[in-house]
């Protein structure tokens, strides 16, 4: 079972992707570890590691980078929100 990963707004544009399905390797169990896994691919993905104030959500709830992630979750990475 894979984990759905979504990218939004300026991050989506910078990565050239709105999302993907990722099979979590052993040892990748938090949002922070997932971010680092993706960033380790090199450009443009390394922007995930450099992004100022990167935010993330697991299953549509905002969480920190120490939050647990498992197969079947929907994880989203995005810049600070600017609605309203």
């Amino acid at each position, binding site marked *: 079972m894979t984990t759905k990963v*979504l990218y*939004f*707004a*300026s991050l989506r*544009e910078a990565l050239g992707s709105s999302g993907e399905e990722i099979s979590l390797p052993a040892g990748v169990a938090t949002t922070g570890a997932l971010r680092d896994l993706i960033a380790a691919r090199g450009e443009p993905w390394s922007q995930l590691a450099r992004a100022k*104030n990167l935010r993330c*959500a697991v299953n*549509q*709830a*905002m969480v920190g980078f120490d939050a647990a992630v498992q197969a079947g979750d*929907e994880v*989203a990475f*995005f*810049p*600070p*929100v*600017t*609605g*309203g």
Partner: protein
Amino acid sequence: MSVSVQEADFDVGAEIAALTAGNDNAGAVASFVGLVRGGEIEAMTLEHYPAMTEKALAGIVADARGRWELLGVRVIHRVGRLLPGDRIVLVVVSSTHRHDAFAACEFIMDYLKTQAPFWKLEQTAAGSHWVDARESDDAALRRWSDAQ
């Protein structure tokens, strides 16, 4: 449904009237309308995270209902392409007490600004750019941790 995310415009007067219709206790209705500012901006596109937006807004409304005695809450946030002067967001709160209505309305806006997954792409003559988050919005949010 007290929370809507939609492309269509909304009727502020009708929404305010609907929130108090049939409830004689609502002596106080506070509301907020956010509009697209003009100046250099020619248009604005609001992107969102569809699966999360209504959930996030409903959570903010639930938080507000836990803090104040509210009779009704209505939140509408538009997405898609908007022009200067267009309405972006509406928050309406009814209560028996005006201070509760005002406080909850501002609380919901402060949380929406920092916790609901919307992003603004502004279009000017010089090109398009994503709007930066503002530190003042984070500061506004911190006020609610200290006091009402």
